[in-house]
């Protein structure tokens, strides 16, 4: 399988975009994956589901602005160079 580093970057951008478009109210609450529903007890370690929800929420918060920039750059480059 011929992988290049460029395809890895493309995959990373696509995956981050996919996580960033998951809307909190419209979608995640409907399937019970809202960020405040995963917290279990306090003293115990959070389970896998809580960690996953935490990860989704933090990716959305942190990567929102950088993704705008990276996507714009990608669009411009693809328009110019095909």
């Amino acid at each position: 399988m011929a992988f290049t580093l460029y395809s890895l970057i493309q995959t990373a951008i696509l995956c981050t975009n996919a996580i960033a478009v998951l809307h909190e109210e419209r979608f995640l609450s409907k399937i019970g994956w809202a960020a405040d529903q995963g917290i279990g007890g306090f003293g115990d370690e959070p389970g896998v589901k809580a960690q996953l929800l935490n990860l989704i929420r933090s990716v959305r918060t942190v990567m929102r602005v950088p993704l705008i920039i990276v996507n714009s750059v990608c669009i411009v480059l693809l328009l110019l160079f095909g």
Partner: protein
Amino acid sequence: MDFSAHSGFRQPPKMRMRTTSTDSTEPSPLFEDTSAGPGAAGYGRGQDKGPAGYPAQTLLSDPMSNLAMAYGSSLASQGKEMVDKNLDRFIPISKLKYYFAVDTIYVGKKLGLLVFPYMHENWEVSYQQDTPVAPRFDINAPDLYIPVMGFITYVLVAGLALGTQNRFTPESLGMQASSALVWLIIEVLATLLSLYLITVNTDLTTIDLVAFSGYKYVGMIVGVVAGLLFGRTGYYLSLLWCCVSIFVFMIRTLRLKILSEAAAEGVLVRGAKNQLRMYLTMSIAAAQPIFMYWLTFHLVR
């Protein structure tokens, strides 16, 4: 390849800086005046007999160019300091040096351990006042030398294998290298993600994971070389042996790092948490033979 390039290319800038700084502070040894005997060295005197000396002497005796050279060299050393400081923030160079502190005996023993891990008894990493001991003194410590060298050798052996089948082009060498690198990055990211999700309290750093994932290149090289020498049966037999060895090696090494202390000693500890950790160790170890086969089967026909 990235790590060797980064730790290797620090040397030339240092040497360049040293020579130019000695130039600016002591120009006389390099540009001594051989035309006249007495009173030949030094800048100030060169000013007096500017037209009489060599053209190089007149160029350097000019105070402006002297100033310019001193300023340029100080600027260059400042730039180098800034680059070093910023580079150290992104790539921990001092931590990397620990992983390359190996010697020949360690490499030999580790290679033997990678293909035959069945006789080794004590798999614990020894510590020295809270810091892990350098790989030179402890065979269980992970290092980056073998993975880096293994990666480069794998790319070369892949080129050799392609060449014997008349399928070689220089681009295919680059493709092999970048494919293997991409798979390595994917594997390390997947391992990091699963370690985060299962909330394992471990002291495995990212570089440790890169080191452990890079140990499979040794088995891949053995398999491909055996395939070149003895055909497909040789390839399959040696790959099978190396896959099983890497599986056992990874399980025995990761067991001590990921599982809790009680479970690592062989006592059966119940509970969902330990079960998850055991599954994680098994899947990391099982991913190694899969990658080994995936990255080499197209090289041996």
